């Protein structure tokens, strides 16, 4: 009884990472517990029903889970918790969706009372057809997604074994010339393919696009890829042309500007969820081809209407790609029931340790406001407060000092407020990318940045998602969307892409002291700390005092 694990009464697991058995324990519990926080000494995992069902879907049973807990736990595990785990896990798979040779899609049970119970639910009744035998009931094929969603809500998640349509075949091969899928990417592809449908969780910068490409090469069928925005769509296209046998002509873009439908079509969430006169005019995209695979990029951002469409796509293979299963809107269960269980998961630090993403040094720079700024801040309207303190002139000076310090390195300055960014751009002599910048212009600037022609780029939140800036080594965050942790992760991701020279990435947050800015920063940084990126705090005054000739070490 001296294991590295402590089981808490609220079903969190505390793992002492410096313990000699920590690694073995981590491997044992990763299959069923979600990593919640990973600060330096003790990592927190949480056991949730979804996590347990994910484990069941991956072929683990309650015995293994209980054994993992009991073996590694430092203190006796409360019996009630073990019983609860066993009961929760036993709920998965009591109901199975199958393809019946005569009756088509059917719901079958191995436990008759469960079937009786769910058939009495008002939510289920409209979704099922005739009772075929005491253990089987017909399900309307169009309700396959709906019934899975409803069953999960009732606490009896169904195992979907009804299989998939192959879709229209289309040859796709990975062209591994001079590069190869990384081992964890290969594992992710295999995990997904054997599971049928599901979600692959990889940190930003770990090459999720390649996992998508790998999955397409397995499916060898027409593919619909759903991404967050147009820039991201272009990135996907670029990457697919580069890494696979697909040519430009085979890949279509379906966005606000272009409406191409090709064997591989990349569509944005935006265009799909555009509503005209109360209907979604672009829904026909889903039926326009016999898709063999649907890829969802950034599943954690999937807009609610897309879930609705996805419910109707249950006969097609679905691959979700994301950095985190945590959704700010709490719809994790819909991801589970409609896209599928988690098929692969690798924690950030582990991939960093393998050298695939760059290590990062996170620094919070605390700026002292001048007395006049403080007074102005104190008397500002509540809703204006954040904007005010986030855009003070003092901050600008500190930012300039930071940029100067990292002269010669690829630097991104990221902010929320356009006028602040314009001003910064002017002072730094750097171009600004914001919402009104045309896509062509954006790509041009990105290319220049990538080629090293430009070393500083000021970007608004439009750059938050899915753009690929491989050579950025310094990111300076001057303001953000309040305390969004999601945004923090994305921004950190900007500098985490592997660097050619293995240089350590820098992530600066410039924060006004004693203001709401600091509170929001604390909230955002909690995410970093939980991901294992301890940040340190530097006083802006110290930084400014050291001036231009300061070496990199001064903040250590």
């Amino acid at each position: 009884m001296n294991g590295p694990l402590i089981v808490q009464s609220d079903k969190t697991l505390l793992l002492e990472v410096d313990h000699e058995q920590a690694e073995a324990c981590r491997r044992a519990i990763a299959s069923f517990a979600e990593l919640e926080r990973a600060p330096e000494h003790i990592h927190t995992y949480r056991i949730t029903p979804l996590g347990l069902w994910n484990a069941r879907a991956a072929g683990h049973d309650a015995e293994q889970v209980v054994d993992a807990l009991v073996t590694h736990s430092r203190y006796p595990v409360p019996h009630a918790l073990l019983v609860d785990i066993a009961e929760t896990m036993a709920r998965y798979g009591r109901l199975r969706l199958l393809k019946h040779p005569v009756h088509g899609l059917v719901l079958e049970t191995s436990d008759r009372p469960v079937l009786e119970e769910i058939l009495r639910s008002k939510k289920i009744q409209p979704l099922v057809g005739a009772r075929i035998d005491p253990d089987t009931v017909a399900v309307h094929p169009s309700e396959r997604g709906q019934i899975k969603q409803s069953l999960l809500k009732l606490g009896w998640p169904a195992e979907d074994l009804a299989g998939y349509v192959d879709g229209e075949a289309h040859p796709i091969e990975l062209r591994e010339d001079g590069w190869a899928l990384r081992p964890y990417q290969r594992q992710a592809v295999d995990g997904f393919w054997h599971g049928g449908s599901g979600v692959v969780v990889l940190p930003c910068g770990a090459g999720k696009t390649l996992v998508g490409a790998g999955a397409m090469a397995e499916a060898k069928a027409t593919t619909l890829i759903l991404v967050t925005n147009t820039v991201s769509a272009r990135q996907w296209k670029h990457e697919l042309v580069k890494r696979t046998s697909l040519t430009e002509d085979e890949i279509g873009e379906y966005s606000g500007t272009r409406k191409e439908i090709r064997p591989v079509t990349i569509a944005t969430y935006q265009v799909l969820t555009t509503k005209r006169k109360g209907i979604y005019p672009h829904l026909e995209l889903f039926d326009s081809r016999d898709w063999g695979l649907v890829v969802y990029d950034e599943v954690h951002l999937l807009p609610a209407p897309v879930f609705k469409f996805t419910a109707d796509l249950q006969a097609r293979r679905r691959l979700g790609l994301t950095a985190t299963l945590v959704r700010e809107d709490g719809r994790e269960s819909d991801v589970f029931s409609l896209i599928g269980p988690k098929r692969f998961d690798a924690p950030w630090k582990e991939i960093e340790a393998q050298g695939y993403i760059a290590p990062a040094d996170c620094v919070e720079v605390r700026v002292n406001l001048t007395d006049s700024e403080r007074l102005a801040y104190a008397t500002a309207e509540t809703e204006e407060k954040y904007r005010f303190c986030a855009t003070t002139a003092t901050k600008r000076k500190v930012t300039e000092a930071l940029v100067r310090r990292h002269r010669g390195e690829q630097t991104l300055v990221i902010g929320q407020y356009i006028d602040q960014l314009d001003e910064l751009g002017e002072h730094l002599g750097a171009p600004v990318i914001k919402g009104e910048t045309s896509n062509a212009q954006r790509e041009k600037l990105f290319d220049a940045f990538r080629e090293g022609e430009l070393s500083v780029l000021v970007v608004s939140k439009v750059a938050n998602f899915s753009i690929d800036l491989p050579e950025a080594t310094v990111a300076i965050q001057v303001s953000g969307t309040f305390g969004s942790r999601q945004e923090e992760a994305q921004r950190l991701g900007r500098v985490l892409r592997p660097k050619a020279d293995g240089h350590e990435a820098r992530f600066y947050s410039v924060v006004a002291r004693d203001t709401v800015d600091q509170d929001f920063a604390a909230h955002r940084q909690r995410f970093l700390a939980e991901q294992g990126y301890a940040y340190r705090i530097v006083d802006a005054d110290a930084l400014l005092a050291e001036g231009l000739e300061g070496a990199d070490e001064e903040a250590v």
Partner: protein
Amino acid sequence: MTTSRETGAPRTLAEELRTRPDDALAALLSARPDLLNPVPGDLTQLATRAATRASVVRALDRLDRFTLQVAEALAVAPDPCPYPVLAGLMTGWGHIPGRSGSGGLPEDPRIAEALPRAVAALRDQALVWGGEDRLRLVRTVRELLAPSAARPSPTGLGPTVAEATAGMSPGRLQQIIAAAGLPATHDPVTAVTALTALFEDRTRMAELLATAPEEARAVLGKLLWGPPYGTVTAEPAPHLRWLLDRGLLLPTAPGSVVLPREAALHLRAGRAHRNPEPAAPALEPVTAHAEQLADATAAGQAFTALATVEELLQTWETDSPLVLRAGGLSVRDLKRTAAALDTTETAAAFWTELAHAAGLLASDGDVDERYAPTPASDDWLALPAEHRWAHLAGAWLAATRTPGLVGDKDAKGRTLAALGPDLDRSPAPEVRRRVLELLASLPAGASVSPDALLARLQWERPPRTATDDLRARLAQWTLDEAELLGVTGRGALSAHGRALLDGSEATAANLLAPLLPEPLDHVLLQADLTAVAPGPLRRPLAQMLGVLADVESKGGATVYRFTPDSVRRALDAGRTAGDVLAFLQEHSRTPVPQPLAYLVEDVARRHGRLRVGAASSYLRCDDEAVLAELLADRRSAPLRLRRLAPTVLASQAAPDALLEGLRAMGYAPAAESAEGDVLIARADIHRTPPRTAPAPVPEGPPVPDETLLGAAVRAIRAGDMAATAERKPIAAPAPADGGLPRTTSAETLATMQAAVLTGAAVWIGYVNAEGAASQRVIAPVRVEGGFVTAYDHTADEVRTYPLHRITGVAELADDHA
């Protein structure tokens, strides 16, 4: 009851008791302690009391299933009943040819083996008396257990032929006799005897049944194991006709028939019970964990239990919930407590009741009554952990309070509140102890399924009715609570639980002590502003951290989170940033993370920039010199003046005292309106006055100890000697003309009971509620619960008389009635 010493065999229970040795009497009193209250005057009185309905019901309730089945069998057997007949009823005569399943139960050798023990148990408890050749069930027992239309017997047997044919016309009886192939007789009594003899004769009965139509046999099969009653139409089908003609079905009411007992017994191969259960169901251990694992789990839970109770006390000392007017804790307070303890309401009810039973919290008895920790709780908190646990567990074991009932509705539809009235259930300690004893009978580390345990408990004390599930619920609660309290671990009784059961709290504490986790003196600080205590902390450390940070998750470890608010709380409590950081440095295994240090310093920097203080009055004056003069004046010292600003002084004296003082010093102050007066009240820690823990409310009198038993037996013997030795033929208390008969109450009761048996009328003296005396002639029908129900010849109706109003009783001369 009179005694006769002419023959050797006792004729009444009292006589039989008289022949029993002292230790047998002591055993009887020990098994039925209610007989001792008050100590009976003599053996007649003891026998009478032992035959009262209330006492008999109580005794029957405590029989195990097999003994009860034997008593039930005796109740359907002839009275008196020779032992072999009883054995036949229990074991049957083996297989019935041509019948399998229901009737053809294999003979169970365990029955014959267990029977003598069961009979002895019944005899010990004075429910059965008489020799082996004439076992007699006490009449009250027979009344309670014998089948009647109103109360079917568990045996499923119906009335005897004699009882069922009681009202039948002689003509009909003749027809039955004839159809059954018996010699005709005009005498109904002979006819009934002949029919009974036929049904009881195995050979003749078998021959008779062999001629029965197939459907008729099916009907008999249906009624065989009871209920023995069936319905027939006015024009019965031929196979029913066949049965009715031969008396195998006897009419009870129009349209209703019954299978007579003798016939049923033949069909059952002589068995009174379908499933005699001679042996208690075995407790099969379901899982045998390692003994250490069960103990460790239990110890872990014991530690959690202590932490929970401590937290409860801590919560309630500043946030004392109100006592409802009807007593108990309101549902809302229970919910809040559950939220504070991070548990369910059921568990919260358990913890509050446990702390209450252990005398750690009570109501304070103030005008607006609140619950708060008792002074004893402070002593308890000072004890070592294992002794704290032993105290809790000891209180739990003996408590009659049942927190499991909280939230249920009582008979009036009111919700039962935690700590409220009506939560005492007297069988609770006994069931609790029995459950643990059964667990203790298993090998160490083994647990048993609750169903098996319940089956065993129900065998030992069969529920009176199918719906009477209090004991089952109590057993389930016991299992749940034992697990919560850490008496059991993974369903197996722990070593310290065993010691507790043996009555040694000290041993239990010693066994538990090494298993409890050693409190730690360090935490791990992390950059995400959390501190993790990887185990229980020493109390001062835990208290300080509790102030300095918010608890985020509990269990084996504790996760604390530092927030600006929590750090401010620590600064408010008088700590400085330096203190806090030094404290963290000292107790952290790792360096204090920079963000945490920044957080503490940031909060400290802003802390105390605004100052708040309490003053009773203030003094302002535009002339600074006057104030300076005033401060310098020594006479102003009692006013405790303090300069806040050049023109403002604050005083701790009340405004009127300040005015008074200033005037005495020769100034002419003017009072200002009381606005701005600052008074700050701090919540006090709440304690009740000294309170004793609630005593358990056991059912009935306690089991008497050896000394009391001995004394009681001697007293009874002496009384009996006095009653029986004095055989001088004093004329029965023949009443003088107009005088009321006078007898002792024991004699009155005995005479009444005798009269019930014989159906004789007696003459009583009676004093009514107004004190008016009268004499009445009554024929007692029933004597129970201190009342005599009797047909009153004087009033010509059935009346009920309280026994204590009857001054005396005398038998009537024969010519009366």
